[in-house]
């Protein structure tokens, strides 16, 4: 569809008008125990019409794509903006939607159609066979998710941005059971291996080798000791650090949360506007970046949905909080420096502040040095449970697989490892940070926020991390 032509033909009185067309095809295949469970494709398309009238934005998301449909949507949006402008929380000017011109295409080696449905199904069936390393493995799952997205944003200020993505997620899991013990192992946490990439992710030899390991570790956990209870050192693998960064840093730094927009749903934040530039968020080892250009990371892009150009920025530098996660609207409301993270989950939702790629930069320690430094502690990997309070303070997270660390060495495997802490003291207890060799990139399609609700993709990368004196415990 020709958005420029439609935009030029829209006849409404507004200070600014933008059209954001999104078409997204999401394919999902799931094989359980060698049998197909799901082969599906969801194809969504529509246009989000946004207008600015009397300082108030209003929107109308419509799946009707012809000129009369979009004209009608614009008229309705103008009516809503006008009605709401008497009660605006903030009166915006056109500077809230900067002029943006450019494009972005996500990197991939092998196109989505390089694998036929039959070939991909066959690979997933083989994967479930490899996961079943013994009769103790009672359930095996292999899933593949591909997302192809086209987006085109044009606006009355001349903005014109086209961004196209191919994104692939996969997961393989084994549930082992013996007696009254049941344990599950996945490939680094549910769909944690989510990337902007192509079908090269489904390299058969790699996939099957990973599946054998996943199955073996599920069985290993059946006879493992319960994770000990106590206050001790904690080493987190990057696949758990993904969740740790997401919940106890990312959401806390969203400026719209700090401004109170989310108080009825996701919650507020322990971070206050006056904390920027002053709050020692973590130890001096902690450097958090918003980085939209990490190769293959799940939430890379060139412009956010408000038209702000995406640039790499430090949010936390040497442990000090210096910048927030807020797009232009939040920056104008708060006066705090932000980033290009004003994003919508699809055409049918208005943008809000979201994480994108939010990473912990690597340090200098090797994995061996970190383990050798621990007299008594636990190494944990792969998230399986997560919960945090509405201020992003008191959290409790659980992992699939743990290893005791005793006198500087990894010793026994332990099951049901959990830990709980409070965000600021926890990050201040970061005492060793892994080097680039320990740095791994992950992502998830499932970050929920906003009213109306939105699920969006985010990326997180981290090295191995060692935290001092954490409350650790086992299962029921």
């Amino acid at each position: 569809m020709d958005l420029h032509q439609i935009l030029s033909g829209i006849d409404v009185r507004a200070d600014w008008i933008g059209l954001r067309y999104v078409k997204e095809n999401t394919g999902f295949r799931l094989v359980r125990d060698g049998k197909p469970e799901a082969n599906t494709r969801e194809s969504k398309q529509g246009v989000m019409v946004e207008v600015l009238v009397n300082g108030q934005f209003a929107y109308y998301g419509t799946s009707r794509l012809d000129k009369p449909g979009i004209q009608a949507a614009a008229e309705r949006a103008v009516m809503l903006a006008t009605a709401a402008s008497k009660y605006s929380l903030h009166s915006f000017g056109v500077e809230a939607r900067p002029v943006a011109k450019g494009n972005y295409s996500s990197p991939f080696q092998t196109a989505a159609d390089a694998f036929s449905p039959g070939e991909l199904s066959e690979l997933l069936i083989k994967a479930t066979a490899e996961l079943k390393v013994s009769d103790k493995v009672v359930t095996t799952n292999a899933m593949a998710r591909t997302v192809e997205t086209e987006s085109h944003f044009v606006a009355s200020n001349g903005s014109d941005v086209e961004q196209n993505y191919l994104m692939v997620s996969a997961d393989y899991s084994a549930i082992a059971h013996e007696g009254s013990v049941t344990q599950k192992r996945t490939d680094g946490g549910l769909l944690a291996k989510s990337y902007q990439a192509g079908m090269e992710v489904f390299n058969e030899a790699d996939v099957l080798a990973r599946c054998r390991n996943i199955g073996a570790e599920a069985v290993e956990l059946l006879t493992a000791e319960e994770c000990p209870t106590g206050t001790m050192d904690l080493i987190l693998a990057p696949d758990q650090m993904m969740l740790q960064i997401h919940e106890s840093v990312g959401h806390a730094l969203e400026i719209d949360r700090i401004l109170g927009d989310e108080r009825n749903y996701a919650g507020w934040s322990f971070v206050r506007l006056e904390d920027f530039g002053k709050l020692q968020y973590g130890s001096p080892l902690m450097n958090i970046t918003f980085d939209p250009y990490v190769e293959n990371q799940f939430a890379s892009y060139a412009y956010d949905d408000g038209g702000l150009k995406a640039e790499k920025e430090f949010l936390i530098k040497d442990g000090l909080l210096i910048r927030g996660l807020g797009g232009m609207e939040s920056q104008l409301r708060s006066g705090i420096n932000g980033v290009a993270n004003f994003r919508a989950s699809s055409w049918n939702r208005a943008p809000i502040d979201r994480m994108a790629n939010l990473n912990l930069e690597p340090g200098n320690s090797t994995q061996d040095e970190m383990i050798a430094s621990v007299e008594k502690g636990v190494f944990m990997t792969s998230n399986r449970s997560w919960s945090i309070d509405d201020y992003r303070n008191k959290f409790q997270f659980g992992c699939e697989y743990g290893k005791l660390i005793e006198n500087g060495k990894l010793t026994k495997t332990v099951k049901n490892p959990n830990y709980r802490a409070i965000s600021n003291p926890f990050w201040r207890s970061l005492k060793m940070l892994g080097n680039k060799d320990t740095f791994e990139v992950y992502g998830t399609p499932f970050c929920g926020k906003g009213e109306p609700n939105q699920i969006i993709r985010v990326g997180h990368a981290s090295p191995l991390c060692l935290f001092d004196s954490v409350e650790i415990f086992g299962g029921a």
Partner: protein
Amino acid sequence: MEKLFKQINQTIMAELRDGEFLGLGFGGEQSTFTRINAAKVRQIGNVDEADLGFNLIFNGRRTTGSISLSGDLDEDLSRARGELERLRSEVVQLPEDPYLVLPESKETSHNEKHGNLPDAETIPEILLPAMGDVDLTGIWASGRVFQGNANSSGGYHWFASDSFSLDYSLITPSEKMVKATYAGTEWDQVAYEAFLADSITKLELMSLEPKKIEPGDYRTFIASAGVSDILSMFSWGGVSEAAIRQSESCLGKMRNENVKLSSLFSFSEDFSSGFAPQFNGNGEVAPEKTILIDGGELSNTLISTRTAKEYGVESNFASEGESMRAPSMAAGSLKESDILATLGTGVYLSNLHYLNWSDMIGGRITGMTRYACFWVEAGKIVAPIENMRFDDSIYSFLGENLEVVTEKLQINPDVGTYDGRELSAIVCPGILLKSFSLTL
């Protein structure tokens, strides 16, 4: 919208080839959303969308898909035909599915609920002045929601409902909060203003100096809204028959080890309230009521026809994911007026937040207290408490530690909007626990 669905259904079904079975699902909404912060409009807009889902079965194989609909019949028929061709080309490449379910239901139903909703452009004017100076943050959602289902065997269902909801939090200057939802189908300005005024009165209790309590085990009352969050967990690794069979359910202990919950705990899938359609994605109509946990014993599970086929059991026409669509917990004997006196000394929790299984197989849930939660001494509210983390097992707090259940049931509408505006509600009482574990 129904006219569009019917026309697409008739046309596409007539074009099926020998050996093809097809189910069609229709979902859509025409919604107005108003996001409010500090009793002002943060964001306002409309969403008008419809989707058509396909479930194609051919030669023992199955594939599914969905497309967005534009509302224009010619355009949508073109899209639907394109999707059917795509599915045809895919289905022959897939492996055989031994558990597939043919869309054979011939049942029909038609349920349209018309309400009296305010016009979208009047919403700021009718909502905001009544809020006055109170710090209110929340979301208004209103409009029509549609669901339809048809299949190549002649089954046909249609459900459409008008509704509105204002889900909000009131916040004191010291950041204590009260949560409420005003929802319905017939807008009544006087009733809305009275409801809001009542919430504001409750907020005054929160101005008391908060009390910090230490981690430990406490006598605890959990009000209906909090109980509804706990019951929601049974849709995720809970009452699904497939989840139990595949060792991914907290209720595995009840099935396999004959463990029981308290005799005071009874829990059903109950469509009698009429919030959610009784038909599932296959057009199958579930019984009006299926008792799942009866007096603490696992009596039934949610069983889809697919699961029934795989495990040789009888379907109760659950959805394919076997999640709850109409959860309902039975009432008990505790009068509302006796709650504080019966609690004596302990904590009163009005709402919970961010629940997750900390050990699904062990039945252990962690989460936070949120909103109006109080310390109670000798039957009297003393102070709001600082939010606390809990971590406890259903086999404890819905087992031996469940002391009494309130006699009043409350309807907790699902105001979720991730996949469009939800239609369901959880009907449940409050629960008084002898002990509940607060950990952080």
